[in-house]
């Protein structure tokens, strides 16, 4: 049985690298060119109007996102739907503000943001373009409170 400790030591050396697995993991990423595609450009969102009265439609267009992927659409942190990018990494969706409260809204797709405001006195923006329409729920508007700054 003298050889048993040696076997255990040898096996320990052979398998010691497994101790790194919790920290570095095993290979999981496919080795392909797509993982390096689009790394030079940042995704961006555009919106057709900065503001509109309740009942307005806002068209949001995404550019330079990873192609053929589905993303959550968040408004002020609340998920209102999902959108799938096309082969060029673009997408378009509309936001229907009927029933939404006046206020400021931040649209967030995969960490990229664009802002619009619903203002009672603003013109009603009609529906422009095509795409999935997401209804903006009430009660999620942002209200900013500006505190006075006092300096000596």
């Amino acid at each position, binding site marked *: 049985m003298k050889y048993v400790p040696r076997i255990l030591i040898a096996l320990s*050396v052979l398998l010691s690298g497994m101790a790194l697995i919790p920290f570095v993991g095993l290979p999981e990423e496919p080795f392909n060119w797509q993982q390096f595609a689009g*790394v030079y450009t940042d995704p961006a969102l555009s919106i057709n109007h900065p503001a509109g009265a309740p009942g307005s439609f806002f068209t949001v267009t995404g550019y330079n996102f990873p192609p053929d992927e589905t993303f959550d659409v968040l408004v002020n942190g609340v998920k209102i739907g999902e959108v799938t990018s096309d082969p060029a990494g673009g997408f378009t969706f509309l936001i229907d503000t009927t029933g939404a409260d006046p206020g400021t809204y931040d649209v967030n797709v995969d960490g990229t943001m664009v802002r619009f405001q619903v203002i009672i006195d603003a013109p009603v923006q009609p529906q422009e373009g095509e795409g999935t329409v997401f209804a903006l729920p009430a009660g999620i508007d942002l209200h900013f409170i500006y505190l006075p700054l006092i300096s000596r």
Partner: protein
Amino acid sequence: MKPLSRGSTESTQPTVHRPPAIDRPQGLVSESQGGPLPRALQQVPYLASHLRLDRWTLVSFSLPLLLYLFTLPPTVYNLDSAELTTAAATGGLMRATGYPLYLTVGYLWSHLPIGDVGYRLNLFSAVTGALTLALAAQILRRLRVGGWAIFGALGLLATGTYFWGLSLIAEVYTLHTALMAGLILALLFWGEAPSPRRLGLVGLLTGLGLAHHAAFVLLLPGLAWYLLVVAPRAVFAPRALLLASAGLLLGLSFYLYLPLRYAAGPAFNYAGTYDAALVFHPVDLRTPAGIWWVVTGRSFAGQMFAYQGAELWGETWNFVGHLSQAFFTAGVGPGILGLFLLARRDWRKAGMLGLMFAASAAFYIDYRVIDKATMFLPAYLVWALWAGYGFQQLLAWMRQVSPGRAGSWSVSLLRGVMVAAVLLAVAWNWRLVDLSGDWSARARGESILRNAQADALVFGWWDTVPILQYLQLVEGQRPDVQAINRFLISPANMERAIQAQLPDRPVYVDSAPVDMLGTIAARPAGPVYRLSLNSSSTGFPGQEAKTEPPEDRR
């Protein structure tokens, strides 16, 4: 419990003037024996006569090659592969660091009558990857490492995602590692009997390596170390210096490719920049300054030595992760063991390998690029040698203490674990690297060309333009389209060029130019965007913007 012994196979005699161990194998018969090749092959003069082309070397070449052939992409691949393939097949010029050896050999290889040109250059990587492993097997044989240990170490290297993946696509790395393995082998060969002719071979391989990739310079500290600690007088003997210099110059002569091809005005040229009028200004490769600009990678200087402090430590830890994954974690322990035992028993060779490993790893750890995990291949190669040495010492240690049936059983157990690790790596990594059904690069390029209107101008990054240029310059598709890599034109010049060209010709871009969306509109056209002048105001957050419906896509 005894400490790990020096084993029965490793001589402690000085390296210099030791007779070629591989010619007279001692001990480890069952680990290292292999049938000789046919006599005709062994009659190849000089170098081949000193190589023991046994079954393990053949296995080290043929098994990985078979694996790579099964998983090779059937046509041109994307990014740098498309660039390299196009440049090699058309006698073009690359960005830094020039790669004249690859372009010369690749040009000849691209005429093989098999598959399309893209496939041929992918195959070239597979062959040079397998050649790396065969040469590494020869190195390990010279370190008195037996067949099973060679299989375990090189099997893990060959089936790791990085080495396997880079052996499947047209890339510079496996030719780099083949030359590196050849250089190490030549150094060991010289160390056994330091003759001027053998030093000439070292010089030749150094020259070839430098003519392939300027990063070969990272191996020079290890090379200099070995030459100086083994036989400095033999290095500075006039005849040795003469032959080494001649070999070096012969290898470096491949740099003549750059001025010669520059003078020919190749259609594919990435050594230069475009201005706003889309006039290309090539770097003058007929001048030493121009060649120096390319060779030293001046266009990438900003990425070198880019990390400091905690960020650098983070990158170092990332390297540990890459290294672990490159050997499916199973090569980590034996690599460390091999490193220390080799340092104890042969500090000359250990110093050479250690310096090569350290320089290669340190440079790329501190290099700010996204695909640097693939650039550690030289470091992985050295690690595989250490792992092979470690495997061998473990096997020898087991046999030493248990010479009977139990010893045989325990050795078989260790061999089984090594083989199982390799097979597990194959099974695990196959799904990650298999490109045998990957037509995506060609499909993307052909889709863009199909959608492009006549005389179109296409701006794009590496995943867009090189594949278009391959289809145009190698296969003759859509010569009316002008494709410009955004790497070769500044953002300001590209914006000016877009504004100037839009009224006269269709302009496409692979990602919407965010800064321009106030004056132009972008609508998807296949995998790219078609740009058009926007009469109304458009914009981004806080501005008005205009979107257009997608163009018809086929």
